[in-house]
C-alpha cells in the first residue's frame, strides 16, 4: 500500500509523500516542490485532491480558501512554438 502511486505523471508514491513530510517537517507546498507531486504533465488535475488529502494528514494543514498549490499558466502543456507565436484571431 505504501508503494502505491499517488501522482501518476511523476510516479510519486504515498510513501514518498509521507516520508518527505516527516523528514523535512515542512509545509504541504514544500512537500510538493520536493517530490514533484502534482507538478507533472497534467498540472495536478488528476491527483491534486489526493495529494492535498495526504498532506493534510501528514502536515496537519487544513484546506484553505485559496487553491492549495497556486495554479500557474499554462494550464495545458503547450509547444513552445504555440507559446511563442503571436497568432491572433483576425480572420
Amino acid at each position, binding site marked *: 500500500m505504501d508503494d502505491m502511486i499517488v501522482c*501518476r*505523471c511523476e*510516479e510519486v508514491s504515498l510513501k514518498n509523500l509521507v516520508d518527505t513530510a516527516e523528514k523535512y517537517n515542512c509545509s504541504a507546498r514544500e512537500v510538493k516542490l520536493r517530490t514533484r507531486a502534482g507538478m507533472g*504533465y*497534467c498540472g495536478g*488535475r*488528476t491527483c491534486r485532491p489526493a495529494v492535498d488529502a495526504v498532506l493534510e494528514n501528514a502536515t496537519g494543514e487544513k484546506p484553505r480558501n485559496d487553491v492549495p498549490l497556486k495554479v500557474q499558466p499554462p494550464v495545458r*502543456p503547450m*509547444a513552445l512554438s504555440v507559446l511563442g507565436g503571436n497568432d491572433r484571431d483576425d480572420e
Partner: protein
Amino acid sequence: MTNNRIVDHPVLGRLADRKEITFTFDGTEYTGYEGDTVASALLAHGIRTLRVHEESKRPRSIYCNIGHCYECRVMVDDARGVRACLTPIKEGMVVSSGKGLPNPLDASIPPEELPRTYQEYEEQSKEGKGDTDA
C-alpha cells in the same frame, strides 16, 4: 480481430453507419469510424497501452478519457504529446505510442551511453532507448 463496438443499445438505439477511416498505430493499420478518437478506435480493436511512462517505462492507457490527465499522450504525424482521447482519427494518420526516455539519473545505464549533446538525446529518444516495451 477484436471488435468491441456497442452496436445495439436498448435506449440509445442502433449505431448509425459511419464512414470508415484507416490509420496506423506503431506501423500497423487499423480501421475506425468517423467520430472516433484515436483512443476509442484503438480500444475498439482491444488495444489499451498507448504509451509507457517516460522514466519507469511502465505501460499506460487512457485514464480520464476527456483530456484532463494526459495519460494517453501519443505521437500523431509529427506532433508529440498529443492526447489520444481528444484527437479524432483522420484518413492516413500516423500514430505512434509514447516512448520512454533515456534517464540520466538511472544508475544502471553506463555513463558512456548517456547522451552528451541534445542531438544524441533526441536520437536516443527516437530509438526509445531504455524502453523495455519497444
